[in-house]
């Protein structure tokens, strides 16, 4: 069985001095996934870098949730395009 590494949302919020409602809003907007175990909310550590990025957007850059959602979509698109460019470069190299 694979081990899951989870962080309690309450602990994350306390550590970052942020409101739990912010995390809930992120979940509602489909930006993160929260797991509930015995009525306690957890997030997968894999999501941590992304979540911390959202915290920086919201609390440091003053970007609202709609903005975060838009930025996330655009960054994902940039990543996809980067992958496509790398793939096309490799194909181009084949014909050079």
């Amino acid at each position: 069985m694979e081990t899951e590494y989870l962080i309690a949302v309450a602990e994350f919020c306390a550590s970052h001095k942020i409101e739990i409602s912010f995390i809930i809003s992120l979940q509602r907007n489909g930006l993160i996934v929260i797991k509930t175990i015995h009525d306690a909310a957890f997030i997968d550590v894999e999501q941590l870098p992304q979540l911390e990025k959202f915290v920086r957007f919201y609390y440091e850059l003053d970007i609202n949730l709609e903005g975060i959602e838009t930025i996330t979509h655009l960054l994902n698109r940039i990543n996809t395009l980067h992958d496509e460019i790398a793939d096309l470069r490799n194909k181009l190299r084949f014909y050079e």
Partner: protein
Amino acid sequence: MTFVDYYKILGILNTATSKEIKTAYRKLAREYHPDLNPNDRDAKKNFQEINEANEVLSDPEKRKKYDQYAKDWQHADEFEKARQQQSSDSQRSGYSGGQSGADFSDFFESMFGGAASGSRGRQARYRGEDYTAEINLNLIDAFKTHKQTLSVNGKSIRITVPAGIENGQTIKIAGHGGPGINSGPNGDLYITFSIANHSKIKRLGNQLYTTVDLNLYTAILGGEITILTMDGQVKLKVKPETQNGSKVKLKGKGFPVYKREGEYGDLTVTYHLLIPANLTQKQKELFIKLSES
């Protein structure tokens, strides 16, 4: 050491209010924040300057000190004396932005020490900066899983490079980035592979392609040739009457499939017929006879 004009960096007048400073900072931070400009070194550098300017100007004490020194900047001796008297603070806050926070200018370090005081109240734990590195490999190196040692920020890291890694592919080594801030976790290390191919074999994903020369007689009568693959020489039977440009596929002789042990692509061999040159008179006569038969 060069004087750094923090007001100019934030595009504000030296009479700016704290609200104006905050607004200017946020506007520029939104433009240059590393989270919004992944892998953009110029943006990162700009952001560090903006961050530093804000670190000073948003703190009334630091701003006062800075304004005083900026005014007296011509008197370098006085500045030096003051510099020696200053004490360094122990913590800093502000944007982590995937930054280690250690990147302040000499000017800042001289005036305020290497670290700044937590002026923003939110002493959050942040993960450290994500590092990026590039590894150059040859196609043959990428063919087999192997260990590679690289030096990142003075530390030696030994990694396993899985066979089948693609040119331009980036892998993440968790926890090998910059140290976290306020006991936050370390950042990650992202390694991008650049794979050079100097061989006659061309790669497209897991498929390999090569062209081999075939003499006319073997092409017509059939025979056996030896070709070079990624993992050594292979004997190949050539069917009689093989045409120029015809292809044969060698199953499983291609490139390894990334992270799927024992799985390989195919190698496609294209025959390039060599027409005999410098024929003797006798040979020419034989060809004439052949053409008339």
